[in-house]
């Protein structure tokens, strides 16, 4: 058992909460997990937990920061109204190539996610529970999860049987409608809403989809209460979150930090001319001077049109060119379009090509205006938010690297190192089988 520091109100401020304490240096098996966190606190009645999650103010940690209790309530209400038994899905398909927090959580604390899945299933009255993950690049998360489920079965803790499902290695396969499409037997490509998944999702039943980390927080709130959860974070955005931090060495570091933490605590020392990417490849580039005044919460980041997203904070090394890096990532994003919607299918490759031209130097004078016009044309016109996220990323690059754009127009570039920095998977989708 770890010691927990509490302040006068009984709120706990010690981190990490989700990951095993660093000194243990190993992943939680069932016994370590049960020893640290105790029994699964089933409420033995549907709906009860929803009020507690509302009091805690937990929001989704997959990127959208949607209030969790609203989703729980929507599924619970739809199930009641339509007299259908809902399904619950833990989304561990972390498709952002720069992110590694869900894979790390599933590797180190699989039982906390599985606890959250059970408790969420009970809260909405679900009889189906699925854990959806990617094949991990480094760890065999799949066999870790199979072991974890066997241990839980032997201990008799799970009330709803959990199925494991694997996402294809595509950027969009973790998107909610793509996930439902895939688990319903189709390709992992987005579909057009409405109806909402909370009303008609997996096989037509009301479906709760929550990010894996969100469920782990839920499992702890169920044990320790809303006040404990609010012991860290801000009033508006309480709690902690997992972040993936990348600095000059390029290696990801996963850390659990309170919302509202100064960004500079994550980036280290940053000069005004440096740049920080917050929120990943659908996120926002900030200048060093912006990043040094902002904190890791949506209220603060909104000042710079940025969002916390799934907690990715990347410091661009001083020897790299932000335009070259952005162009390479946008090419990847264009190739990862499912190609279903005309504006995305036509616009993203054109934006990517013009950015490559700008990054290459001495571009046509109208190249920047082209990117801006096409960005306006694709935004808000897809079935999913892939075009919107991509243009947010592109627009922030043109703002943050405005001086570099001018330098490139004169045929110069401030980078001294040309090897790629931001991680981009090698294989683009070629055939329909790549989405299955």
């Amino acid at each position, binding site marked *: 058992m770890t010691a927990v520091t509490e302040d006068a109100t009984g709120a706990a401020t010690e981190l990490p909460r989700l990951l095993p304490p660093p000194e243990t240096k190993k992943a939680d098996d069932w016994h370590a997990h049960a020893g640290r966190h105790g029994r699964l606190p089933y409420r033995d009645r549907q709906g009860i937990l929803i009020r507690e999650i509302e009091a805690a103010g937990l929001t989704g940690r997959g990127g959208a920061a949607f209030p969790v209790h609203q989703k729980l309530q929507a599924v619970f209400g739809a199930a009641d109204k339509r007299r259908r038994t809902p399904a619950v899905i833990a989304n561990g398909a972390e498709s952002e190539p720069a992110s590694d927090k869900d894979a790390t959580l599933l590797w180190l604390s699989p039982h906390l996610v599985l606890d959250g899945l059970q408790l969420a299933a009970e809260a909405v009255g679900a009889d189906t529970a699925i854990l959806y993950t990617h094949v991990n690049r480094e760890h065999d998360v799949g066999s870790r999860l199979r072991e974890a489920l066997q241990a839980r079965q032997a201990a008799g803790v799970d009330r709803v049987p959990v199925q494991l499902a694997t996402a294809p290695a595509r950027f969009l396969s973790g998107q909610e409608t793509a996930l439902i499409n895939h688990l319903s037997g189709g390709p992992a490509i*987005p*579909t*057009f809403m409405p109806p909402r998944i909370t009303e008609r999702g997996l096989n037509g039943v009301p479906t709760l989809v929550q990010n894996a980390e969100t469920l782990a927080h839920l499992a702890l709130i169920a044990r320790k209460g809303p006040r404990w959860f609010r012991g860290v974070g801000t009033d508006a955005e309480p709690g902690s979150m997992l972040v993936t931090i990348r600095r000059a060495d390029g290696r990801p570091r996963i850390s659990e930090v309170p919302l509202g933490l100064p960004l500079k605590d994550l980036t280290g020392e940053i000069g005004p001319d440096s740049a920080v990417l917050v929120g990943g490849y659908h996120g926002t580039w900030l200048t060093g001077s912006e990043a040094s005044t902002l904190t890791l919460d949506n209220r603060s980041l909104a000042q710079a049109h940025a969002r916390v997203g799934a907690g990715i904070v990347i410091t661009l090394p001083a020897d790299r060119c932000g335009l070259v890096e952005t162009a390479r990532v946008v090419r990847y994003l264009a190739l990862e379009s499912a190609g*279903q*919607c*005309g*504006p*995305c299918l*036509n*616009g993203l490759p054109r934006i990517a090509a013009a950015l490559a031209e700008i990054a290459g130097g001495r571009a046509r004078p109208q190249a920047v205006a082209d990117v801006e016009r096409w960005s306006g*044309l694709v935004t808000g*016109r*897809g*079935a999913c938010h892939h075009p919107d996220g991509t243009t947010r990323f592109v627009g922030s690059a043109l703002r943050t690297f405005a001086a570099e754009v001018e330098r490139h127009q004169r045929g110069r570039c401030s980078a001294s190192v040309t090897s790629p920095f931001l991680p981009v998977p090698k294989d683009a989708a070629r055939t329909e089988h790549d989405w299955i």
Partner: protein
Amino acid sequence: MAEKLLVNPIDCEGHGACAELLPEAITMDEWGYPIVDPRPLPPGLERNARAAVSACPTLALRLVRS
């Protein structure tokens, strides 16, 4: 109750019939896909809007309550 147009961008294949029948609310982008005015349809356009909806070869255009 006021209605508005909603295009399903997955089903839309850019045939362009809607923009021809309802230029007041639908224009075409440079790739031939419709840009639909998201605001409630102004009075007097309902008939043409219904014609545009029926003319869509892929049934991608709908009128919904706004």
